[in-house]
């Protein structure tokens, strides 16, 4: 039983980490390699507002999310917009920005284990005889909440629909008067906010450390590649696949093999289905 529950928690953790990356890539085709950096930036800003500026917790979270969203806008408007359509340059540029943010934070004092966010509600509860702390329950609901929000946003709002249109057929979208750059800006910035939300929800489970930024990036990439880049349904499915595989590995083999498991799954998926679980035919042409 604890296998299932912790498997679910683990999978939803992966969804939270990767959904922003998957969204930005799915809509604007911008591989936002600064994703992990934005994640840590949001967590660190929340910490700064909470403990250095002494704001209430909820206000510091909102401020941090707003700032990260603005950073996302700036990232697209000032840098990525100039290298659109050159995938390698996009990767290098966004990764450079991410690297600069992460290492700057490390230099300015984000080291050691001194930086922690408090859980929203502390304490544990037993579900089917499995002890589970409230923060992990928040993780589950937060993940489901984000997915519902994304679904509602891309189904009912005009902006969301325009994002979807650009993702499906950019030229047709342009003909219908959708500003592709605006859509991409929204997507990158929303992806950044999602990274921030994930940070705020996940970071109370551990310390805020720079290494976590790289880890989030790697898992976001792993999940997105596995699920088919740009398809967020695929990303959800891949999160569950990798999440459960990892939980099973941890409980039956040895805890430190779960990184290997992730790489192993990626490679298996790529060999048998190069475009990922939910990749479409068009993507197949692009990548193989």
């Amino acid at each position, binding site marked *: 039983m604890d296998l299932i529950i912790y498997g679910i928690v683990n999978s939803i953790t992966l969804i939270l980490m990767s959904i922003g990356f998957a969204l930005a890539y799915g809509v604007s085709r911008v591989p936002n390699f600064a994703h992990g950096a934005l994640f840590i930036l949001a967590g660190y800003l929340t910490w700064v507002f909470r403990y250095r500026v002494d704001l209430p917790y909820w206000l510091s979270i909102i401020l941090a999310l707003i700032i990260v969203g603005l950073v996302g806008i700036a990232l697209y408007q000032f840098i990525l917009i100039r290298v659109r359509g050159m995938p390698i340059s996009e990767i290098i540029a966004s990764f450079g920005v991410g690297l600069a943010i992460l290492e700057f934070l*490390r230099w300015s004092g984000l080291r050691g284990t001194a930086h922690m966010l408090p859980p929203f509600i502390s304490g544990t509860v037993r579900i089917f005889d499995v002890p589970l702390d409230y923060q992990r329950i928040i993780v589950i609901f937060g993940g489901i909440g984000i997915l519902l929000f994304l679904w509602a946003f891309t189904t009912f709002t005009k902006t969301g629909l325009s994002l979807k249109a650009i993702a499906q057929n950019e030229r047709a979208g342009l003909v219908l008067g959708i500003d592709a750059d605006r859509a991409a800006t929204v997507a990158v910035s929303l992806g950044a906010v999602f990274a921030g939300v994930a940070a705020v929800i996940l970071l109370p489970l551990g310390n805020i450390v720079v290494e976590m930024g790289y880890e989030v990036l790697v898992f976001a990439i792993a999940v997105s590649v596995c699920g088919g880049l740009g398809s967020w349904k695929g990303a959800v499915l891949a999160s569950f696949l990798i999440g459960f595989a990892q939980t099973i590995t941890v409980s039956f083999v040895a805890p430190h093999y779960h990184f290997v498991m992730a790489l192993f799954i990626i490679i298996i998926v790529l060999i048998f289905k190069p475009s990922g679980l939910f990749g479409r035919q068009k993507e197949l042409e692009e990548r193989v």
Partner: protein
Amino acid sequence: MPELRKERLDRGVKVRSDSIYALSSMKEILYLLGPGLVLILLLLVLPLVVSPYWQRVMAITGVYALLSISFGFLANYVGLVSLGGAFYVGVGGYLSGLLNAAGVPLILSIPIATLLGAVICTLLLLPCLPLRGVYFAIISFIYPLFAGRLIAATGYFGGTDGIPGLDRFPSIWVALYMAIFILLIVLYGLSRMVNYEDVGLVFRGVKDNELAIKASALNLTWYKVQAVFISSAMGTFAGAYLAHLYGWVGMSLFAIDFSILPVAATVVGGSGTLYGPLLGALILVPASESMRAFGTLRIVFYAVLLVFFVVFWTEGILDFLKRKYEQFEHWVRI
């Protein structure tokens, strides 16, 4: 008073035909060979005049230059952008370290680690070779991170402590000139290969037009394997070399520096040739080394530089200098 006019230096050399150089004097030969000769001379003479600290920096610069050329070769000539340079370094370093710890002398452990490591890297990357562009970049980026994690977690190969007490090079001169000679051999050998041999043409086909390669009944994967083998052999040599330069191997060989600095060097130096990455490494590594006092701020420095060059100066320094060199004018008598 004789009449004079300004003339570009390359006028007589290049204008006679567009791409084939028509040389008519020693001066023109010198004009073409000049930059290359200056580079070789500089590399050979500089170790004699600098201080011991900078000799070490030069050795490390050579390593990074090798990695940059490896990245540039794979990215510009074969179209596989590998962000996983650290993986090659790590594999080569650990192999050489293990061999050396088992009693194999340095002179054997480096070549064995280079070749064996390249084979291992190629085999591990084999499943990902059908991928292109972004996808290969992403996957290769993950490799060194996972490898480092695996060693830290399992505790194999010395775990987080690494393997200490390896043989060091007999002296800094051996180390330094070894790096320089390997660098020069690789540079000129590789540029001959990609520019004048058939296989170079095939490599470019792999990059630009895979269908043409398939239509010519050439095995696409086999050529990619060759390219990855060549490129990873440079990386594994770099790793093995570093292992014996420091007398120690550890998880830092999988550090992100080894993946990113070559990319930065290629972008800064200018992509499209093998000399661009070299020039980039020769500029970036000493610059980053002299900023060592600032700690991780130097990573910020080259990350910002990287973004600047990618976004605003895609041409790179080498092409810029080349253009300036060709536009250089002198007075001639009419």
